[in-house]
């Protein structure tokens, strides 16, 4: 028998962890000398009560969806891909090249091309650590972290030396052609009378991210490859017995993971800035780790967690704008969420399990 029902594992425990994280965040806010209740009000007001707030929240959530899914897929194969940040950066390079050098007739084709470019470049950036892990046993955590730095340096070089338009002072590429500009939520949902999502960066890529959730769910739980990835993740010896090649699964899982991380750049580079800039990822690759942890590596969980972190991001920006609470506080809150949902998982889990067992015993 499982120790507790599935819903408790998937919903209850993350909620309790979240509550604890919120509680300790409140203490931190108190310590700064601000009111936690006012802060929460401000965050909700700024991120969820207006459509433009939602426009930001969903924009961030789109990033976190891609990077969260990327971490999840790798994690099903027991590979800890910390390199989402670097893969997303290099994915951005793929987007830029596709948008700059291909004369796209319409955005709908351009987004497909850019997605392929982003995924290929992201996957390529994950391929080297994957190969080193599979063939040489170099730990993927170490190599992916190093590849984040290499990616940042590479992007810097490419932007400054190769893609920067002549005469520009900015380390950024030229603006993409107008035909590649993606429709924002404002374009899509506003009517003449009621403007919606005004000025917000959320764009059509959000729906691409939702499609990616469905894709990952089908891949992991409905296909042969997903079966092999999960089997390898649970037991490498078992995989060998079944004739599943550890090298192949390591490489394939990391390619998919890197591809998903790379696709995040469609949202930032193509959907928002419409040119490739330095640091367009803004740490979303790392937030993806927290999102995957909290979402229990399930696409639906990742979806909820991505929305939550999108809210934290946008709400945090609001806080910084209107109060003396610095933007970094959001990093503290995120750290607390990661601490409670990831590292201290058992602290919550064990008492909850005990309660369920006690309840069951009383019923029998």
């Amino acid at each position, binding site marked *: 028998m499982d120790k507790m029902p599935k819903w408790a594992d998937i919903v209850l425990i993350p909620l309790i962890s979240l509550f604890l994280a919120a509680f300790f965040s409140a203490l931190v806010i108190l310590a700064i000398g601000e009111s936690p209740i006012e802060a929460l009000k401000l965050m909700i007001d700024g991120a969820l009560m207006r459509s433009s707030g939602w426009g930001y929240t969903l924009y961030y959530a789109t990033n976190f969806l891609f990077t969260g899914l990327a971490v999840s897929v790798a994690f099903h194969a027991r590979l800890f891909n910390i390199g989402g940040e670097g893969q997303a950066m290099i994915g951005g390079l793929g987007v830029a090249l596709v948008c700059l050098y291909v004369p796209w007739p319409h955005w709908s084709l351009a987004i497909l091309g850019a997605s392929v470019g982003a995924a290929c470049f992201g996957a390529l950036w994950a391929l080297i650590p994957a190969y080193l892990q599979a063939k040489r046993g170099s730990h993927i955590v170490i190599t992916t972290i190093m590849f984040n730095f290499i990616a940042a340096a590479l992007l810097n070089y490419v932007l400054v030396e190769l893609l920067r338009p002549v005469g520009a002072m900015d380390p950024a590429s030229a603006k993409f052609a107008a035909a590649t500009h993606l429709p924002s939520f404002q374009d899509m949902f506003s009517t003449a009378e009621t403007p919606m999502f005004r000025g917000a960066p959320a764009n059509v890529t959000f729906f691409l991210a939702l499609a990616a959730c469905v894709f990952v769910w089908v891949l992991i739980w409905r296909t042969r490859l997903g079966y092999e990835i999960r089997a390898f993740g649970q037991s490498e010896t078992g995989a060998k017995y*079944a004739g599943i090649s550890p090298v192949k699964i390591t490489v394939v899982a990391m390619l998919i993971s890197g591809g998903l991380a790379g696709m995040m750049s469609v949202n930032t580079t193509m959907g928002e800035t419409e040119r490739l800039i330095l640091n367009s990822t803004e740490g979303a690759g790392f937030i993806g780790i927290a999102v995957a942890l909290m979402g229990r590596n399930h696409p639906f969980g990742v979806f909820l967690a991505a929305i939550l972190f999108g809210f934290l991001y946008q709400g945090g920006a609001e806080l910084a704008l209107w109060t003396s609470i610095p933007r970094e506080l959001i990093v503290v809150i995120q750290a607390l969420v990661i601490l409670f949902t990831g590292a201290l998982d058992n602290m919550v889990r064990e008492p909850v399990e005990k309660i369920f067992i006690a309840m069951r015993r009383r019923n029998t």
Partner: protein
Amino acid sequence: MTAPAIELKGISKAFGPVQANKDISISVQPGTIHGIIGENGAGKSTLMSILYGFYKADAGEIFIKGEKTLIPDSQAAIKAGIGMVFQHFKLVENFTVLENIILGAEDGAMLSTSLGKARKELKHLAEEYGLNIDPDAVIENLSVGHQQRVEILKALYRKAEILILDEPTGVLTPAEADQLFRILDRLREEGKTIVLITHKLREIMDTTDTVSVMRRGEMTATVKTADTSPEELAELMVGRKVLLRVDKVAATPKETVLDIKGLRVIDEKGVERVKGIDLHVRAGEILGIAGVAGNGQSELLEVLGGFAHGTGVIEVNGAEIPLTGHGADGQARRAAGISHVPEDRQREGLIMEYSAWENTVFGYHRDPAIQNGILMDNAGIQAEAQEKMDRFDVRPPNPKLAAKNFSGGNQQKIVLAREIERNPDLLLIGQPTRGVDIGAIEFIHEQIVKLRDQGKAILLVSVELEEIMSLSDRVAVMFDGHIMGERDPAQTNERELGLLMAGITDTSAVADSGDGASEEALNDG
């Protein structure tokens, strides 16, 4: 009458919803060997862990030499004179015997005083109990039997009056086991009290004075060993009558299915594990490979199963199969008609987190018959899994339950169902009944014999000599990577096989000459 060495009164312990020990009372007289027998999961180890302070009982009292004693941790157990020899030794591999013995019992910060004292004490113990061992030998260079002696010495050094041994013969050759039992006899003569936990009926019958039987967390009986029989104990363990012997007719072997010539296997550390062996298995027979664990049998199975590499020639149905590189994996082996019930079902044969239905296609999951376009036909697999589980009497018959939630026997039935129902030409089967309860053993043995009678070739590897003897049509003994010889199980005995398992080929010379010769040969280890 003296007070009992150990007296447990009304011990209960629950792990979540599982009641591991239910109101257990037991009394062990000093200077006796008391056996505790029961199936896996009957609660033997839990009970002993309570006695040794690893677990806290939910209810009940412990009396040592008539005095009520609280044992909150293992330090308290040692203080109360209880020593424990675990199934998996707790020795530091690269320390010497002496260093291991004082570990955790050092006097003061400087090692030399403790070592000097221990050396003297060890000499004394060796004389008193016949536990000879070189105090300066490094543990990793010692045989398993000697490592076990170090564990016993460790307990005695800590002034143990009561010694608990948990499945002590699992890793020993029959001869080493005999030596262990002689040591235990000696300890008993010196007044020590010994509790022997085992699932082997023969050991209970041969060595103990009294025996307690556990079933599903309860103590079902305590009897004098002299007044009982293996059949009665088995029935008490399982709760119904059990067939201890395998019922089978003589084999009618046909053409050779598996032919191995000059197989060598070098493991990942560069150690040669299989050193050039020749074997063949014919259709309609069971070839049993006997041997103490770690003599190359596992590697033999791994190469045949496609998850280790080797050199030499292996032919299946007359066609050579690749032993390295492309085509030397589990998928290719399955395509060649080889099914494999691996030795370690928890690490290899099953994905413990997968549900039973997912496990029923593990290894065969690329079979086009269970695909639905690019997706797997999960509904179809589930329906088929239900039928398989019914046919193999897997309990509970719920395909959605994760493999880890089944008992050892039922896990093994899931693996067997999967491998046997693929209708292979050759079935590799390693340790078919390790950690499996007696009731399920009977069923598993029946299935293996049934497959043989359908004309399939079966290669059986087991460290349980009894199992090899009763199932096999031919027995080959492996020692140190070599095949020491082949015997007809009807014309050999455990003693002869035991000598082969210890690497002594000249069994005719020593078979009749009594204990002396064989023991000397073994003492060299």
